[in-house]
């Protein structure tokens, strides 16, 4: 079939380009029924079970649904699951799904999809990160289209939390099985409040409201997520009106935009901790050195210098408002005490203990600058740190191979706020997150992993958090902040874990 360009169209193109096209008014952020968001990273894949990427969670939450959701204060709330009941021994969990949920293609969502997501595709060997988070699932017994029971091989006390966490999105069994995974990745469908309208790798994601959504309908009909990786370019994009809101911009820009009438600029503390992951050997085999290193760090000064004072100094690996946060526990900045600890091990400013120190550069705001400041703080008390930059992606590999230095500056995201996913993961010697392999702390963690009683579990983690810091097994520094700049008339719901959800946005009158 020969294709012919109509003469009128051709003339329009030529004239349009030569004239108004080149330097005409640019299409900036859209109208009142649309929003453009400047986002720092693309999603790794349109299979929401495939990769655990905290940055992608809000995007996935627009297209797909999770069995359980969290409210802005992070309390677990029913979503696709109307109710769930974790057995006292933590070995089974009965669930009841809503019966009014459909996928974007009109197929009804049932317990078959639930079973497929959390069991069948994992057992089938599809490369999914959820294969790890749900590896305890032995079976899911389907009792009806809305009722099922999950069976675990060992107690799974955080199963409800994981239902609202990374990767736990229900995918359509029939659609994937009939269309194939490749087609699902090209044209993904979920049950979420938005449908995917257009996607260009590393460029933009266009979402259109799902008018058949079972829950509250989003107020904004069209959402364009523009992938802008460079923080300065994100700032320029919001400044010039090409996006309506953006996140993860430099703190100084938040202060600048805060003075402008048309913008709202925020530094929101979230459930992400900045800490030092430490080893229990090398120079840090000596508890005196570890405690000295921790007492020598002025966390308030770090917060003021790098986060405008908005990042809360932490004494334990938990953020304010989460269940295992210790509001009455302090670990003071005390350089004299640090020097005394070092003196006990015959170290001083003149005879410093030498340690290795690793940090990322650009993984989270001011990471390398924080590391350099800590090196200077340590130097004053008698700790000489050799700072090296590592890529974030290499952390796990270096840790597995026991090649991390004594201390590593690290950022840990836990959208659930549950203490197992804070201290439990960071200090579990069997998991690759923890650089600390000593079993005095490690056994306490392992024991807590099988405690199904919620109150008992939380109390255990509160004790663990205190014990781990007092024995120098971890050095929490600051609660991280999410920087955000938005048009003042664009409202959204603020979540304690930093989610910025398009479905919560609306333009104020």
């Amino acid at each position, binding site marked *: 079939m020969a*294709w012919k*360009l*109509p003469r009128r*169209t051709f003339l*329009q*193109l030529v004239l*349009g*380009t030569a004239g108004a*096209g*080149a*330097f*005409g*008014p*640019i*299409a*900036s*952020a*859209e109208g009142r029924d*649309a929003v*453009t968001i400047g986002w720092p990273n*693309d999603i*790794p*894949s349109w299979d929401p079970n495939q*990769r*655990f990427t905290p940055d992608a969670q809000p995007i996935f939450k627009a297209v797909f649904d999770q069995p359980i959701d969290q409210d802005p204060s992070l309390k677990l709330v029913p979503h696709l699951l109307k109710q769930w009941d974790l057995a006292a021994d933590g070995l089974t969990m009965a669930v009841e799904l809503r019966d009014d949920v459909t996928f974007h293609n009109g197929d009804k969502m049932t317990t078959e999809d639930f079973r497929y997501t959390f069991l069948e595709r994992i057992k089938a060997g599809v490369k999914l*990160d959820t*294969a*790890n988070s749900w590896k305890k699932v032995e079976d899911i017994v389907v009792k009806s289209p809305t009722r099922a029971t999950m069976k675990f091989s060992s107690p799974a006390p955080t199963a409800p939390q994981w239902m609202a966490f990374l990767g736990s999105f229900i995918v359509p069994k029939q659609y994937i099985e009939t269309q194939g995974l490749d087609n699902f*990745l090209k044209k993904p469908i979920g049950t979420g409040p938005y449908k995917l309208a*257009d996607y*260009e*790798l*590393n*460029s*933009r994601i*266009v979402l259109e409201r799902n008018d058949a959504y079972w829950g509250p309908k989003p107020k904004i009909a*069209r959402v*364009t997520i*523009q*992938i*802008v*990786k*460079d923080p*300065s*370019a994100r700032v*320029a*994009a919001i*400044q*010039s*009106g*090409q996006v309506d809101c953006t996140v993860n911009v430099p703190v100084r820009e938040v202060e600048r935009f805060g003075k402008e009438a048309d913008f709202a600029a925020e530094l929101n503390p979230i459930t992400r901790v900045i800490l030092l992951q430490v080893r229990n050997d090398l120079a840090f085999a000596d508890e005196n050195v570890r405690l000295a290193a921790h007492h020598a760090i002025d966390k308030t000064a770090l917060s003021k210098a790098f986060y405008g004072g908005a990042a809360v100094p932490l004494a334990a690996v938990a953020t304010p408002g989460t269940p295992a946060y210790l509001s009455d526990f302090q670990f003071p900045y005390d350089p004299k005490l640090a020097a005394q600890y070092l003196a006990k091990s015959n170290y001083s400013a003149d005879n410093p203990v030498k340690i290795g120190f690793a940090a990322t550069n650009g993984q989270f705001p001011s990471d390398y600058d924080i590391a350099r400041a800590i090196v200077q703080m340590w130097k004053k008390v008698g700790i000489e740190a050799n700072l090296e930059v590592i*890529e974030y*992606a*290499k952390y*796990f*590999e270096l840790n*597995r*191979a026991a090649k991390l230095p004594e201390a590593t500056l690290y950022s840990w995201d836990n959208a659930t706020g549950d203490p197992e996913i804070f201290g439990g993961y960071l200090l579990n010697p069997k998991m*690759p*997150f923890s650089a600390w392999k000593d079993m005095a702390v490690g056994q306490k963690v392992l024991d807590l992993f099988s405690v199904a009683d919620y109150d008992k579990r939380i109390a255990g983690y509160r004790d663990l958090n205190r014990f781990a810091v007092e024995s120098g097994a971890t050095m929490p520094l600051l609660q991280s902040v999410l920087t955000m700049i938005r048009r003042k008339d664009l409202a959204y719901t603020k979540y304690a874990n930093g989610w910025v959800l398009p479905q919560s946005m609306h333009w104020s009158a």
Partner: protein
Amino acid sequence: MITSVVTLFGRRLLAAVPILLVVSALLFCVLRVLPVDPAAMSLPPTATIAEVEAKRRDMGLDQPLPRQYLIWLRDALHGDFGSSIQFRRGAGSLVADTLPATIELAICAMVAATILGFGGGLLLFRVRGSVFEFITDMASILLLSIPEFLWGLILLFVFGVLLHVLPFTGRLAPGLSQPHITGFLLLDSLLAGRADIFISAWQHLILPAAALGLAFSPAIMRVLRSSLFEAYHEDYIEQARLRGLSEGRILLGHALKNAALPTLTLAGVQFGFLFSGTLLVEVIYSYPGMGNLMVDAVRNADLPLIQTVGLTYCIVVLLINTVVDSLYVLLNPKLRVR
């Protein structure tokens, strides 16, 4: 004439094969020597050491390096460049998705560089001996000293933020949907008969293409000026004057034709560099091309993707050089004698 050009083209393509093999082997070795474990990187963080070891065996990483390379080469010849660690998709398909955007940008940038280069070169030559010579000379040196990413930032600030006349993120305005036909957005918009998309795509291309064009035009300017100086020492220029031709006609009709040949060769070489220069410019302008993909791959130590993108850059540069050499023969009769 065509025969000699085709022969040269074929010969150059054949010569490119061993070069590609050497580059691919070098890339492979360098990436394997890096302290990064592709097996560990391709598993979720919660994977155990035993799982990593099993994965390593599965990926053939327990084999000697030459054998690993041969396995990779065999797969690559069958179109399988491995799976991206970050995206868990075929690295080849990721490159195929992003390459058209980069080619489109590079071509527009090359056109801009050529127009600016030839225009600037002619201007530099015309003002020789006048009071403007020093000023234009200094200006060309200044242009030469500004790299493409700095141009990117300057243009973004001036035209995007300050004057607010041109967009600088992505390839298309938010309200428009991209037609997915060839991946070349300008062409796709024409094929779809969508003037609005064509204009928006064009607007989004101007700043990144100008940034690259401005960075690569000064070299063209200066070589053209030197070539024109040489051409003006030839007898045919004096003869043209004696025939009463105007200075403008001598410059454009006679001297430029001859001076253009060495400039064309340089432009070809520049195109190769320009193609590599898209990397930073794409990041600055959030332009979804291969450069952006490469930056992602490096940040995530995604070795299969780095290898595939690196090899693609090499293939494109070799192709460009081959085409330029063939064009040179086509345009220069002296080279066709042999």
